[in-house]
């Protein structure tokens, strides 16, 4: 079992989720304040 594959998957979920959340919130804010 390659342990690094699990580490990479967990970081992808956490960082991907955070970036997607920040991007969606920033876009909603920009659209609202335009």
């Amino acid at each position, binding site marked *: 079992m390659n*342990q690094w594959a*699990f580490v990479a998957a967990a970081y992808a979920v956490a*960082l991907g*989720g955070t970036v997607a959340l920040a991007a969606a919130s920033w876009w909603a*804010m920009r659209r*609202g304040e335009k």
Partner: protein
Amino acid sequence: MPSLHALANPARFLRVARPLTPWLTGLGAVLIALGCWAGLVRTPPDYLQGETVRILYVHVPAAWLGMAGWSSVAGASLAYLVWRHPLAQVAARAAAVPGAVFAAVCLVTGSIWGRPTWGTWWQWDGRLTSMLLLFFVYLGYLSLARADAERGGDGRVPAVYGVAGTVLLPVIRYSVVWWNTLHQGPSIGLTRSSIDPAILWPLPIMLTGFTCVFAGVVLMRMRALLAVARAEARMRRMARI
């Protein structure tokens, strides 16, 4: 408390929130990048868990923010019920989405960690199940808040729900003490930890980084909700003319 009441004025809040939003988000991004480098490159593997111990640097902040997010929803809901200030209602709604996202990230990263460590993706034990319940409580709050806003409600029902959902937080916190769970017991306290300092040190960096991003996201969502409320008020005024 007087300073909090001063910030409850939307115009004053926006004067503070506008410069703070990019600074908090940017600082959070830098700290997360630093924490990833430290956690993936600079720390040794654990003698039992091996490399998978590095998942703790993203799993623990997600768990913390999943619970802190609900504490924010509950605190703002209580403030709305007591002082009836609409900004508190906006803050509660703004904290719910990032809280739900981090609760989901906590569940998924925990599952990914569980497979090589416990040999299973999921177990219906106290900690995992109570965290899953919190995620569903978030979904319930978001649906309720949206329905209330669409029907022109005064926000009291979602606020009561927000306060009532707080009963789940001590259950999550003490689930590993009350029940014999597969999830390990409390290993990080305010003053001491059972984790070796050689492995522990990137965790405060990641916790601070993710918390800054969370705060930045809440400010962004509050600004978006306030902008929508202002636009709706303008439309109502124009309809009257």
